[in-house]
């Protein structure tokens, strides 16, 4: 089955953004261009046993803790999925559009409900807790 879109044009675009690696989970405006010099990851020469988490547990312990204790930390959605590597593809503030790779239906339903696509306004970055209040997401089939 080949289709124009499994979900719709909005989700399609979001997935493209996801796979391009342009996206993120920080609560600020999307950047029209790639990361500025200020947003580049500091140069690292990490030993083999060093990981994003082991370094950030020292350098940004609150962020590391929030991620680790959150849903993405539990299911090992590692830092580079949203932030890219520490090289030229690094993005400090990934676009919310990244979420559609796994959460396409929720992204679509949020957009359908009013054009909102800022996932992180309701689901704080890194911790990604379930939001309180009225949900714009439709409940559909599939596993819980």
């Amino acid at each position, binding site marked *: 089955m080949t289709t124009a879109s499994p979900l719709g044009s909005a989700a399609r675009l979001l997935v*493209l953004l996801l796979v391009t690696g342009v996206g993120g989970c920080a609560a600020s405006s999307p950047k029209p261009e790639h990361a500025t010099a200020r947003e580049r990851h500091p140069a690292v020469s990490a030993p083999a046993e060093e990981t994003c988490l082991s370094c950030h547990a020292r350098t940004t312990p609150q962020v590391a803790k929030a991620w680790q204790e959150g849903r993405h930390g*539990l*299911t090992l959605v590692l830092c580079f999925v949203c932030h890219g590597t520490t090289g030229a593809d690094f993005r400090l503030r990934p676009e919310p559009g990244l979420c559609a790779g796994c959460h396409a239906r929720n992204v679509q339903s949020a957009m359908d409900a009013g054009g909102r696509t800022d996932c992180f306004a309701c689901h704080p970055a890194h911790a990604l807790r379930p939001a309180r209040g009225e949900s714009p997401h439709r409940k559909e089939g599939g596993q819980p």
Partner: protein
Amino acid sequence: MKVTRRDFLRTSAAASALAALGSPCRALAEATGPVTWTKSVCRYCGTGCGLYVGVKNGKVTAVQGDGDNHNAGFLCLKGLLLPEIMAAPDRHLHPLVRRNGKLVRVSWEEAMGLVASRFKEAAEKFGPDAVGFYGSGQALTEESYVANKLFRAGLRTNNVDGNPRLCMASAAAGYLSTYGKDEPMGCYEDIDHADVFLIVGANMAEAHPVLFRRVARRREQGKGVKVIVLDPRRTPTSRIADLHLSFTPGTDLAILNAMAHVLLAEGMADEEFVRAHVAFGEGTEANKSLDDYRKLLADYAPARAAEIAGCRAEDIVTAARWFGEQGRAAMSMWTQGLNQRTRGVWANNLVHNLHLLTGKIGLPGSTPFSLTGQPNACGGVRDGGALAHLLPYGRLVANEKHREEMERLWGVPAGTLAPKPGLAAVDLFRSLEEGKLKCLYVMCTNPGQSLPNVDRYRKAMAGDGSFLVVSEAFHPTRTSELADVVLPAALWAEKEGVYGCAERRYQLLQKAVEPPGEARPDFDILCELAGRLGHGKLIPFKTPEEAWNEILRVAKGTPYDFSGMTRERLRQAHGLLWPLPAAGHPGTRRRYVRGEDPLVPAAHPQRIQFYGRPGARAVVWLRPQKSPEEVPDAVYPLYLTTGRVIEHWHTGTMTRNCRELRHARAEATAEMHPQDAARLGVEGGDPVRITSRRGQETFRVSLAEGGRPGVVFVHMHDDRRLCNRITIDAVDPVSRQPEYKICAVKVEKA
């Protein structure tokens, strides 16, 4: 912050900007126009997550999880990065042939002519068993089927085996010996009903992340759900464990027997279920009784088992009580920690014993569920019978009636199929070493890195006396570098065929893009080879669909019967579970269960019928604790165990082509408990040399608080630092699966 559609359109410009930086995602970033989406399945593990492949200008530019499939749209990080592997710089684009020691580019005509003539010559001169095929749980079902048919009925050898022998042969033999039929009887949906999970010898969080997510979700949402993890190492899977039970490698048979001991001693066995559905056996005969079983288990009181296993007796008791608590559904899940053992089949039997004793089987949430490492090991190789002792769909080489049946179905003269089973994986390469096997065709797998004690078999593959053909999407690999001929194979979305994952779910992968260069689908290559070998009538297929239609006929009437899975139905569906014997049949979530499994009569008086065994009785096997082939001693004082990490997959030929994955985990390290490292006088990052009786390799140390003292762990994905120089090539006597999980080593400063 509010981001509108306009903002999103604007961010697509950022994608193009990134492209200018030379990101490996360049092709993806340029894809901002119309995209077509083709339904497919993930290329990696045996979970079989459904996804859509996004294509722009003839290139794979994106993937998106299929919300209508079992994975509910979720993909793991490797699946999300699949587009990057398609245009990797080491994609193999043209046929190569070795001349004067070097691989040089030739035409398809020349390469195929050489392959056909060498195989024909070897079979004629030395007999049919001088040639062999070594396939893959990653090949499409139609590809494995064509290879199987060509080698068995055309070349008349049963030397057809593959890498599933390395990862799931013990699970298959476990199911077969206990229930009489291979493959799990449960399904992924059972996760949503389970109250207790026994995860043993499996690091689901890293090896099966999407299923792990489902277990974690069930634990959060179910009432009092308990997760028990049996694993020497405290892996990320243990984060959801209510009980992590660490033990000395190789002693889990004692623990599982001790759990059975507790179940019986504390009255948690379902006596009525046992009376109705269970037999007891030892060796290969079901000739024992419950009393005999009790006598065996008398040696496995928790205190005694704890002494053997180096764990706490009360933890064994707790695990047994949680598992056996009446009215609570129990699901076990396991993989290589049990399978890759010289007593892997026994270990599998012992897990099944727990379910049979308690009757926690064939009910929602109660099932023994073997996880699978590759996307089509179950469907293509195990079900399709592409292992040395098998014929398609539950038939055995050693069974005369089965051979006759296959000869009729394949339209070949009686006596065409050889009665002697072929050589299983390690034995196949030993035959190459001995010079008996002259020509080997390796398809879609990398034994030059993945075999245990690998240097021994690398020599055999590189030897002058052997002719090695490798069909691969990537080159060089640690196998293709040794080959005499390297054929460029199409990859994943470049071809069409069926995958069958761990829950008997068959799914169609549709072609989304053309292969690059001169690469061709393995299906086409094998069909051409058949013609060149004079077996064009045997392999007359023009398309994979034609082969599939024949496969439906071959499976019809067997316990696998999926003859209702027409190509069109597979195109429309988001996965179908067999048995599915008619066009309108919905598929079978739970085998052996009345009202679900079409092979159980509707009027059967009991809820379950184990129709695979005589008297419809599954077998509780009496299996004692037995040590692994090698245990530490004064010279080699530590255990080495090998396994997977989240960032990579198998021999890394695909995942190393993903910049993010390569960056995140560049090399294999020696994960050591801090106590062992301190004793050796090394710190994280220091180089160490790990040596076994077979070989050595150097790694940098990584300190692992969750490790077990006395146990060193190395992952299997690194193509430069080969853990398999060290591992042992001892195999389970029944399944012939090697003991990758345990050997004895010494670790020294390098």
